[in-house]
C-alpha cells in the first residue's frame, strides 16, 4: 500500500506535466518542447515570490498559474504563430520551442544563478498522515488534490465550455474552423496559456515535494512525461492522468522488486510496448487515413 501511494503521488506530478504537453498536441498538433523550461520557471519564480514576499502557498498557486499563462502566450506568439502555414511547421515548431526554452533557462540563470534553490524551511508544515496503514505527508496529499482538481477542471473546460468546443473544432480541422469564423489565433493562445499555466504549477508542486529546484529539473521530468503522453494517448486528457499514475506506480514497484538501476527502463519499456501494441495509447483515438 505504501508503495502504491508513493507511486500515485509521484505519478500525479508526471501527469500534471504531461497534461500540458498533450493539450497542445491534441488541439494544435504541436509538440512544445519549451514546456520543460516553463516547469522550471514556475518553480524558481515561485520560490522567489515566497522568499521575497512571504506569500503563503495557497496564494502562490494562482499567481504561478497566471505567470505560466503569460509564458504560454509568449511561447505561442514567438515560437509557433510565425510558423503557421509553413509546410515544415512540425519540425520548425519543435526547434523554435527548443530555442525558446533555452533562452528562458539562460534568463533564469541570469536572475537566480545556477545553484539549487529551495523554499524557505517553514513554507509548509511537515505533518504526516496515516492512510490505510501507510504514512504519507500532508504535502503529498495536497499536491495530489491540486493536480487532480486542475485536471478535472481542464477536462470539463474542454468538454463543456464554449472555449472547449472551439478548441475541439480546431483539433478536428483548423482550416474549417477559421472558415466557420472561429478566432483560431485567440484559441491557440488560450490553449498554450492553459498548458503552460499547468506546467508552471506542476513545477511548484514538484519543488514542494522534494524541496529542491535547479535549472535541470524540467529536463529530467520531460522525458518521462513524453512516455506518459504516448502511453496515455496523445491528445487525451484523462489519458495523461491515467498514464502518469500508471508510470508512477510501475516505477515504484520496479524499484522495489527489480532493482533501481533499471528503473528508468520501465518508463521507456512501457513506451515501446504501447507504441508497438497500441500506438494510439490507452485512451487515444486512431487517426484514419485520408485519401
Amino acid at each position, binding site marked *: 500500500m505504501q508503495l502504491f501511494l508513493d507511486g500515485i503521488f509521484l505519478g500525479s506530478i508526471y501527469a500534471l506535466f504531461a497534461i500540458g504537453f498533450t493539450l497542445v*498536441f491534441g488541439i494544435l498538433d504541436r*509538440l512544445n*518542447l519549451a514546456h520543460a523550461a516553463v516547469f522550471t520557471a514556475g518553480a524558481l519564480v515561485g520560490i522567489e515570490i515566497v522568499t521575497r514576499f512571504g506569500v503563503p502557498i495557497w496564494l502562490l498557486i494562482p499567481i504561478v498559474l497566471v505567470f505560466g499563462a503569460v509564458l504560454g502566450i509568449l511561447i505561442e506568439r*514567438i*515560437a509557433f504563430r*510565425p*510558423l503557421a502555414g*509553413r*509546410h*515544415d511547421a*512540425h*519540425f*520548425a515548431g*519543435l*526547434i*523554435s520551442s*527548443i*530555442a*525558446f526554452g*533555452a*533562452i528562458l*533557462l*539562460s*534568463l533564469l*540563470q*541570469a536572475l537566480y544563478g545556477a545553484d539549487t534553490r529551495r523554499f524557505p524551511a517553514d513554507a509548509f508544515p511537515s505533518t504526516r498522515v496515516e492512510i490505510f496503514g501507510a504514512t504519507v505527508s500532508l504535502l503529498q496529499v495536497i499536491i495530489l488534490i491540486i493536480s487532480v482538481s486542475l485536471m478535472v477542471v481542464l477536462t470539463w473546460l474542454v468538454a463543456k465550455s464554449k472555449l472547449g468546443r472551439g478548441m475541439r473544432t480546431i483539433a478536428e480541422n483548423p482550416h474549417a474552423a477559421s472558415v466557420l469564423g472561429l478566432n483560431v489565433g485567440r484559441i491557440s493562445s488560450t490553449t498554450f496559456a492553459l498548458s503552460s499555466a499547468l506546467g508552471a504549477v506542476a513545477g511548484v508542486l514538484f519543488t514542494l515535494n522534494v524541496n529542491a529546484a535547479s535549472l535541470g529539473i524540467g*529536463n529530467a521530468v520531460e*522525458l518521462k512525461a*513524453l*512516455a506518459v503522453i*504516448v502511453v496515455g494517448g*496523445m491528445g487525451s486528457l484523462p489519458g495523461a492522468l491515467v498514464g502518469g499514475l500508471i508510470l508512477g506506480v510501475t516505477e515504484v514497484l520496479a524499484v522495489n522488486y527489480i532493482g533501481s*538501476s*533499471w528503473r*528508468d*527502463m520501465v*518508463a*521507456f*519499456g512501457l*513506451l*515501446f510496448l504501447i*507504441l*508497438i501494441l497500441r*500506438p494510439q495509447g490507452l485512451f487515444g483515438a486512431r487517426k484514419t*487515413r485520408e*485519401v
Partner: protein
Amino acid sequence: MLAEYSSLITLIALTAILAYSFYAVLIAGQLSLAQVGLASLAAFTSALVVPAEPLFGFIPPLVIGIVFGMFVGAIAAFILGLPVIRLRGVFLAIATLAFGEMVRIFLINQSWTNGAQGLSFSKLVGPWIAWIALAGVAYWFWRLSGSRLGRAFAAIREDELAATTMGIDVPRYRMVSFVIAGAVAGLYGVLLAHFSRFADPNEFSFTAAVDGLVTAVVGGVTLFIGPILGSAFLSVLPEVQRVIGVDAGWIRPTISGVLLLVVILFLPGGLSGLIPLRKSTKRLIVDPSIRPSLPSLPAAGSELVNLSGLGKSYGGVHAVQSVDLTVNAGEVLGLIGPNGAGKTTLVNMVTALTPPSTGTGTVLGVPLSATTKAHRLAQAGVARTFQQIKLFNRLSALENVLVGGYRVTKDTLLRRLFFLPSARRAEREAMAMASAQLIRVGLGDKAANAAGDLSYGDQRRLEIARALASHPSLLVLDEPAAGMNHVEAESLSELIRSLAADGIAVLVIEHNVRMMLATCDRIMVLNFGEIIAFGKPGDIARDPRVLEAYLGSSGSDEDADAASALASENLAQVSADRDDAQRGLHADPDPDGVTNPEAN
C-alpha cells in the same frame, strides 16, 4: 592559427557527420532521433574490437573501428526500425528518443563500458581524417540527390500516399533511410571517441540528440550541403562569442538561443536556403532517339480489370455494393454519379488503397484482397491521379514526373558514385521520358517551376503527366476536369482519347457529364454505392434513372449541371456524334512516338 583551431576544425567535421545521420532520415520525412544512441553503441562496441596494432600488419586500427562501427550502427538501426518504422511524425521522434535513453541506461549499467566513468580510447583521429571522412559522406549524399533513390526519398517526404501509388515500397525505403542513418551515426561514434580519447554513455544523451537534430534542421534538409553549413554555424558560434569577448556565463547561451530562433523563424529551409538554386539546369530532352524502348502494352481489348461483386462497407454504411465490372485495354470507361455515390471508394479499391469488404477482383493479374499493397499494383502497371491533387509541391514539375517514372527506371546510385557513363545514359533516358510526358500535357515550358506554384489547371495536367510517366497499362483519373473550363475540358478529352488509342485502359471519374459522354466508350453510373446504369454513352444519356439520380441527389452544383446537361436538347446530338466517331476513323494512334513504335 590553424593549430589553435585544430580541434574546432575537427569538431566541425565530426558534428557535420552526425548531422548527416539526421539528414538521412529527414530527407525521407522521418523525425528519428535515434542516431545518437546508435553512435553510442558503435563507439563502445568498437572499443572491444579495435586492436592496438594494425591488423595483419597493415590494416590501420581506425579502419577496423570504422567498418565495425558502421556495421553495428546499421544493424542496430535495422533492429530498432522493425517495430518503429510504421510510426509517423512525433510518435517516431518520441520512440527513438526513448530508444536513445534505453541505450544510455543499458550502457551505463554494463561493466565493459566502465559505466558512468567511461572508457579511454587512443587518439586516432585528427582534422585530416575527420574531413576526409566528412568528404566521403557528403560525396555520397551528393550523388544520392540526383538518383532514383534520392527522388524516392523526396517523394516519400512530400506525400507518402502518392509515392506508394507510383510503385514505391514506402516501408522498405523508410527502413533503407533508417539503416543509412545508422551507418553514418556509427561512423560518427567511432570517430568521436577516437578523437576525444574518451567516451562515457552520458555524453550520448537526450540533449545530444536534440543538438544533432537542431544542427541538421539549421543547415537545411533540401540541399546535400546543409549538414556542413549547420555544423559550421553552430560550432563556430561559441568560439565567435569567446573571441568577440562576450562574457562567459548565461549570456552566451542566450545569444545562441536567440540566433537559433531567428534562423528557424526567418530561414525556412535552413542555411542552405540561402544558397540560390541554379534555376534547374536540367533542360528538357526532346530527342526521341534517347527515349528507351519500353515493353509493349497489353493488346487492345484484352481484359485488364475484372471485378465481381466487389463491395465496401464501413460499419453499417455500404459505400459500394456488389459491383461487377470489366475494363479492357484501349477503352475509356467512365464512372459517374452524384456526390457520395461511392465512385472514389470503388476506385480506391481498384488501386488497392482500400481493401474490399466483399467480393473479388483482379487488376492486371493481381488479386484484390485485404493484403494487396498499392505499390504492388502500381508496379504491375496501374497509375492514378487523385480527387484532391497530391503533387510533390516543393519539387519541380519535371522532378514530379521523374518520380512518376519510378517503375520504368533503374536505380543509378551505385553507378553514380563512380560517375559511370551507363548511369548518365540511364538518367538521360529517364529525363527524355519525363520530358516527353510534360510536353504531351502541354507543360513543357513550366518544367522548372515548383509544382505547388502552378495554376490549378496546370497542376491537374501535371498529375496526369506524372501518372503517365510510369508507362501504365491502366490509368485511373479521379475528377481530372474539376475546375476546368470548356476549352480545357475538351483538350483533356482529346488527351484521354489519344491515350486509349495508344492502348492504355482509362478509368475516369468525372462530374462533367457532357465531357464523359463525348469521351468514354462505356459509362457506369453509381448511386448510393450501386450500379444503376451501365452501357454506351448514348444509352446512358437516354436512361431516365440516371437523370432521376442526379435530380434526386442532395444537390451540389455539379449534380445540377449534370442533370441539366442530361436533360438538354443537345444530348441526343452529342451521343449520335459519339457513335459516329466510334465507327469512323481513329485519330493518329501514336502522335508523339512515346510508346513502342512497333505497336499498331
